[in-house]
């Protein structure tokens, strides 16, 4: 279970996140929506330790992880993808995922063995499950945009997270790619029992897979609830769903 309590952050006086509280239950799929500049990415960066909050708490299964360094938060079981795709561009696809296994399983201090001999089956298996096995030997930077997003998911999954934060997992994808990616996410979340929190622009995507939706507006939580509740909430309809 991921809990955010009264999280606050201001940049030079501009309130990016102004007292947001949010709970994502274990194995729940939840979405944060809101217009550009609503504070979605800042909220993610506060949760994953990339930005120090001015106030508030982040709890993972009741444990306070507020303000811990990103690499510690990753080890505690939060995985994430970034809005701008974040992969190891000069390594092969296989090496990208293999490196994440090596790091997560604490092999990084091993300076004598050959790295390519480690976790071959795990890496191949994970690549197959995200549908990248055909590209295993390709240099990651040469992949298509959609495939790079898939690879980023693979890197995050190699850390065996309990909670996965995805910042716009389908940004820049075609309608078909978006649908495929969401199906993939839903399947993987089910198989691994993941708690999933994601931001997304595409409302159709959000309403199909999210069990819970939180609406962020100008750094504040406007409303939260099931997709059906959000659809009928007049305030949400007014500021975000584009109805006047």
């Amino acid at each position, binding site marked *: 279970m991921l809990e955010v309590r009264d999280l606050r952050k201001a940049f030079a006086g501009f309130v990016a996140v102004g007292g947001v509280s949010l709970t994502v239950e274990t194995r729940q799929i939840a979405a944060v929506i809101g217009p550009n500049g609503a504070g979605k990415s800042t909220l993610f960066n506060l949760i994953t330790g990339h930005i120090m909050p001015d106030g508030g708490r982040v709890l993972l299964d009741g444990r306070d992880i507020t303000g811990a360094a990103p690499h510690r938060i990753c080890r505690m079981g939060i995985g994430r993808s970034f809005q701008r795709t*974040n992969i190891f561009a000069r*390594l092969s696809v296989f090496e990208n995922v293999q490196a994440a296994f090596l790091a997560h399983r604490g092999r990084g201090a091993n300076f004598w063995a050959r790295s390519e001999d480690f976790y071959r089956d795990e890496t191949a298996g994970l690549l197959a499950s995200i549908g990248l096995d055909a590209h295993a030997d390709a240099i990651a930077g040469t992949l298509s945009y959609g495939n790079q997003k898939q690879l980023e998911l693979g890197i995050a999954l190699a850390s065996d997270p309990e909670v996965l934060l995805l910042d716009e997992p389908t940004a820049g994808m075609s309608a078909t790619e978006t649908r495929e990616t969401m199906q993939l996410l839903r399947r993987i979340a089910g198989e691994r029992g993941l708690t999933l929190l994601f931001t997304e622009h595409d409302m159709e995507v959000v309403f199909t897979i999210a069990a819970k939706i939180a609406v962020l507006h100008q750094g504040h939580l406007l409303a939260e609830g099931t997709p059906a509740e959000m659809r009928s909430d007049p305030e949400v309809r007014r500021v975000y769903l584009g109805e006047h």
Partner: protein
Amino acid sequence: MTGRRRATLASRIPWTLIVFLAAATVPWIGSRYDTFLASQIVIDALFAVSLNLLLGTTGLVSFGHVAYFGVGAYVCGILMKTYEVPFVLAFPAAGLGAALFALVSGYFCVRLQKLYFAMLTLAFSQIVWAIAYKWNDVTGGDQGLPEIPYPDLDWMSAIPGFGDLRIGDRFYLLTLVLVALSIAALRIITRSPFGRMLTTIRDNPERAAFIGLNVRAYQLAAFVVAGAFAGLAGALYGLFSRGVFADYVFWSKSAEVIIMTILGGMDYFWGPPVGALALVWLNQQITAYTEYWPFVLGAILLVLLFAFTGGIVGGIVAGFRFARYRLARRDA
């Protein structure tokens, strides 16, 4: 099999062994001057490979790598000359001393990024230079430490065929073996899981932190390892040139080793040794014809940076790939 490079005919040939054996024949087939050049190349090769653990593998641009080379040279030189410590102890002590200094200076350097990191490494190297230049009692100041004794290499006479080698030849062979072992160690480190973590930091430090790596700790570890091996290279260089002088620690030598690394190809493990060979050899050839060596070097660098960004080794690899592609097309 995915993820593994297929063994080609070229990769089955033990290239490193062949190069090592060829280098080992220099005292017998070459002149005294050839041995002198070969010693310089071999020592510079280790220095450049140690730098490339930072430059090519971890993505850290150090402008002050000569500091660790210099600390190693002074530690070994002072121990052997002032305290008459035998080489077997002074040599590892040089690596250890350089590693310790890298630990202290690196602790601060890895807190900065990119250009600021580079500037701080330069600052530390100038501090080392200033100390070497002014601390007369220990470093000999601007007079340096001349006449460092050679290590005792009489035992080599017992090996058949080594009996009539000059001391300079014997020291070259010792240098060659020590450098080969050091480069082999760096090769193992580069290919290890630790080395793989360094490449993830090079490619994307933000993502590397979010696969669970303490990026600064890894950068510092790389800095210390690179410093230690630079120290070993420095120790050998001090003995090879029979003295340690403040000039060895001047920042232009840091630039020289960066040039070697880029010239050879920093994306390839064997790039820096090739760069060391090319730079020392070219320097000799060209200064025989013209005094404008820096001009020629500048021209070579320009061509490299614009036409062959992969350096000499990158150019060779691209050539092989093109040839294979042409052959495959002809067969099809």
